[in-house]
């Protein structure tokens, strides 16, 4: 396929008088790591909600792999290859890390209207599950821990493993560094560096060190629209971006 993998055209979303998304245009190309940054309140969460299908846009289009997915339900988008992780980790807390990943593998294998065989001991689910957790950086010794008992960094790793299970064409990572300590953050940066090139990634992140270390291209979202897009070097030099960030005290 030539052309962008994800293409967002003139997306609009209002909440009462607030234009949370105000003519958003964005393109993510196959294989690239594209970072979406912006000060607090820029409309990043609303944009993610619309890309993943949790929020219905008022106007505009979202094209994925050339197909219009603007009105597709969230689960169907995932099956098309648009996987996401959550900023606030969403795991099955009663289940172990391994069981979480096994369920993700199961979901990726097709429908689950199978009532007889014991899925909790099915190696065709558990082996790929362990491989996914390892790929996301979770050590094998932690696989049998209930998800609720894992450390914040480990939970983020499981979250990433679940997103990878669907063999996505595009991975939308919603602040994978949020809530992590410095060393956990570095480990996650290395994990993402390892994924670069294997799958296109749209990274929404506040950690500027990580963004500038990883991104091929960066789009800057302010007041619901992209005010600048380009390579990390170009974004760093952009006076518009500096102005937007300096007024927000976030620092760049």
């Amino acid at each position: 396929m030539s052309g962008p993998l994800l293409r967002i055209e003139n997306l609009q979303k209002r909440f009462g008088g607030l234009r949370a998304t105000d003519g958003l245009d964005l393109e993510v190309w196959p294989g690239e790591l594209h970072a979406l940054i912006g000060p607090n309140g820029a409309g990043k969460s609303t944009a993610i909600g619309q890309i993943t299908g949790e929020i219905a846009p008022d106007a505009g289009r979202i094209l994925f792999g050339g197909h219009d997915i603007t009105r597709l339900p969230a689960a169907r988008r995932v099956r098309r290859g648009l996987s996401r992780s959550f900023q606030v980790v969403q795991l099955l807390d009663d289940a172990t890390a391994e069981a979480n990943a096994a369920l993700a593998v199961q979901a990726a294998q097709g429908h689950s209207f199978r009532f007889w065989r014991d899925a909790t001991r099915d190696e065709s689910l558990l082996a790929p599950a362990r491989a996914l957790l390892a790929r996301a950086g979770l050590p094998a010794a932690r696989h049998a821990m209930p998800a609720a008992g894992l450390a914040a960094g480990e939970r983020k790793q499981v979250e990433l493993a679940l997103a990878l299970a669907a063999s996505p064409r595009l991975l939308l990572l919603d602040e994978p560094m949020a809530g992590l300590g410095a060393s956990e953050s570095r480990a996650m940066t290395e994990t993402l560096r390892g994924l670069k090139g294997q799958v296109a990634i749209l990274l929404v992140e506040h950690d500027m060190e990580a963004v500038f270390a990883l991104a091929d291209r960066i789009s800057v979202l302010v007041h619901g629209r992209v005010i600048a897009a380009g390579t990390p070097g170009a974004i760093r030099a952009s006076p518009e971006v500096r102005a937007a960030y300096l007024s927000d005290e976030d620092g760049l």
Partner: protein
Amino acid sequence: MRDRILLLLLLLAAIALPWLAEAAGSPATTGLATRMAIYAIAAASLNLVLGYGGLVSFGHAAYFGLGGYAVGILYAHWRSGEAFLGLIPGSISLPVTLGAAMLAGGVSAAILGALSLRTRGVQFIMITLAFAQMLFFLFVSLKAYGGDEGLSIRRRGEFPGLDLRDAAQLYWLCLGILVLWLGLLRRVAHSRFGQVLAGARQSERRMAALGVAVYPYRLVAFILSGMGAALAGALMVNALRFVSPDMMHWSKSGELMIMVILGGLGTALGPVLGAVALVGLEYGLSGLTEHWQFILGPILLLVVMFARGGLMSLVRRLLPA
């Protein structure tokens, strides 16, 4: 291993119960145990949606009652010789009436579930309750089948090779069906289907992010659960030889919920413990005083307050896995 041996011993004791009751000079105990086994089937069925699926259905008495009425209506038509709706001949063959009951329970759970499962939380509780109450009043007004007085059934169903007029044989049949049904539910809970159902309980959002829309899975669980409740209702009507709209009353839905929660939500054997405990307590306390509910209430309160996870968690404290 130890758990398996204990379970086997329990099962043997359950099988031997009619002889023990006979020897102890209290043959009525067999009838009590039959009711416990039947309620255990209903509670285990409710547990599939309530415990594993996290869906608080406050209307499962509807399916329990429909199963009962399937038996009662087929009996009435068998007796009169007229076909039901001019199409379906009456029957007292137990395999036929149990099958009809499960079909009625499954079809009605499919329809009511398809509508109810579009709601969440408190709305879901209220809509399942509302549908059950509609069915309750429908049967109260059905004068052809006894209205609010109900229907007496003079003859128990016939099962090849068994004489169900014998209390012990009826008990063994119910116990056998209970064991089969529990085995089936256990398999379902551990299957891929069961994993999705449990995942949907914990986070519907997470399931969507895995690419799974949970509605069809919940609906199938609801149908299976309705079929099990109807099966129990059909057996109960055979045991009591009587069916009335009281089987569908909302308080019966509540009793089934109490059994599941008292025994242990989302555990294989919890609902059985809950059914045995609740039926046993009702029987024992009502022998002491007519105000037995005054005593039952605080007992339930104590279990809920001090044994999170129900009676099954108490058992697990005594016998760690």
